[in-house]
């Protein structure tokens, strides 16, 4: 495919299909106005700080604890999502049962439901008087306004990412290998872990990364259930918000820049995994 394109271009030297310049113009214009120029502002504003100031803000106790809460909770939430996402994708792709389509359709609910609504609803459910929270309160476990609550909200927003990145891979998975393994006498558990799982691993990793990234940045659904107890349940995006409300723009910008770099690093990782996957599937 790639080769063919290059050849056509070399031979003719011109593009046959019209509209290149116009499309390029519209694309670059909108991309610059809406994404690139505003985004550049964050780097410009940070550049006004000298490095020592920047370092002081970023390593202050409050902001570091914010990063730790955000990263640890979304990491655990992404792990939970990998387990349940794998189960859900498997059940939806491999089994025929009444309600399968409904299940498939429901997966995208966290995506369609506004995060603020999810936030207040989850808080209500998991508070000490709530339907689920009261069960755990009897056992002495508080969920709302603790890191457990934050994790649950992040599980909620992350589910679709894992399921949707696994589904197409599972659908395309050639069953011959499974059958061969079974014929050769491997048990079903053994087949799953040694034959199927390695095939799914890149997609699983990509889904994990997407859910993780979404969790780190998530604000709406987490802010209500978190309760915002300093050093305990303050997530990084909330800290940025608080600093902005106090007109501490330098602090907010520095905190945001670090968060931004973490997300970019994660996206880069996910992209390289997906690129690897594409190459892998071509051979």
């Amino acid at each position, binding site marked *: 495919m790639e080769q063919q394109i290059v050849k056509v271009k070399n031979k003719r030297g011109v593009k046959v299909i019209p509209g290149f310049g116009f499309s390029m113009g519209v694309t670059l214009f909108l991309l610059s106005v809406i*994404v690139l120029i505003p985004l550049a*502002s964050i780097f410009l504003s940070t550049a006004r700080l000298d490095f020592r100031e920047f370092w002081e803000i970023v390593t202050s106790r409050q902001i570091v604890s914010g990063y730790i809460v955000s990263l640890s909770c979304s990491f655990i939430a992404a792990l939970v999502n990998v387990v349940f996402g794998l*189960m859900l994708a498997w059940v939806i792709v491999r*089994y025929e049962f009444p309600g399968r389509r409904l*299940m498939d359709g429901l997966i995208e609910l966290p995506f369609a439901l506004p995060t603020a609504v999810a936030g207040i*609803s989850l808080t209500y459910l998991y508070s000490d008087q709530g339907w689920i929270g009261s069960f755990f309160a009897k056992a002495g476990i508080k969920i709302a306004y603790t890191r457990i609550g934050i994790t649950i909200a992040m599980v*909620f927003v992350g589910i679709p990412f894992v399921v949707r990145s696994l589904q197409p891979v599972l659908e395309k998975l050639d069953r011959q290998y499974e059958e061969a393994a079974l*014929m050769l006498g491997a048990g079903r558990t053994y087949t799953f872990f040694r034959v199927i799982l390695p095939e799914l691993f890149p997609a699983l990793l990509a889904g994990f990364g997407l859910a993780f990234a979404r969790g780190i940045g998530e604000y709406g659904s987490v802010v209500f259930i978190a309760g915002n107890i300093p050093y305990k349940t303050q997530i990084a995006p909330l800290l940025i918000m608080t600093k902005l409300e106090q007109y501490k723009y330098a602090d907010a910008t520095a905190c945001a820049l670090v968060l931004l770099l973490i997300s970019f690093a994660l996206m880069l990782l996910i992209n390289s995994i997906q690129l690897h996957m594409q190459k892998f599937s071509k051979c």
Partner: protein
Amino acid sequence: MKKEATQEYEQDLVGDGINSIQKVIDPHKTEAAHATKYVLISVCAFFLFVMLVLPLIVVVINALRDGWAAYTEAVFDEYTVKALQLTLLATVSAVAVNTVFGVFASYLLSKFYFRGRQLLSALIDIPFSISPVIAGLIFILTFGNVGWMGDFLKAHNIKIVFAVPGIILATIFVTFPFVFRELLPVLNAQGKDEEEAAALMGAKGFTIFCRITFPHIKWALLYGIVLCTARAMGEFGAVSVLSGHLRGKTNTLPLHVEILYNEFNTTAAFAVSSILVILAILILIARNLIEWKRK
């Protein structure tokens, strides 16, 4: 398991050949597989019910807790209606801009080969990986009082931050790649032979797009628009940073929910939420219908 399979195989060798081999091969027909199947389905159903369905039920029950009159009062409240109008305005703008962008950008990246394609594609995806709060922050740093365009805007009496344009911009930003992401794989899979043939036969750009490209992408386009709508109407973090929370002026529906909730007016907060829940369910149904049509 190993033994069981061999035994079955041996037994069936005596009986009817072809069916029996299939019986051995199909791993989903054994009793253990049946048990796993039902356990897995139950676990998944339970997980989905607790994590996804229960929050919806909570919204509906709490919205109607104080009776129908209180519900309609909250829903038809002046501020709720204004918030709904602003949400619709922001959503329609986001869908319009992102549809135009998505069509041109996906056409560009699928039909032409040029240097920096990968980079461009990666740049378009940026809004996906940014926290909504940061999305709001960057507009404050650009157009706000502290921003480098702040003085210029002030001199010309243009208000973007803490006003409606800021909300619209933020909504466009967070939903920026949605339509593009849906269109690109479809256009890539279609290839460009048809467009090349049409161009060589003398068709103009607009004709080529309308007669050849568009029929291929219409369902994907609709799908992208639905996704974009879903995200745009529910956007909270970015809009929250930029709104300034002026009731009746810069309040979108999700922000209105937050204000009511923080005032301990829980019933009204859930009543307003129920509007968003209904919209979300409509979007899910639309999404599934389109998916079904596409197949």
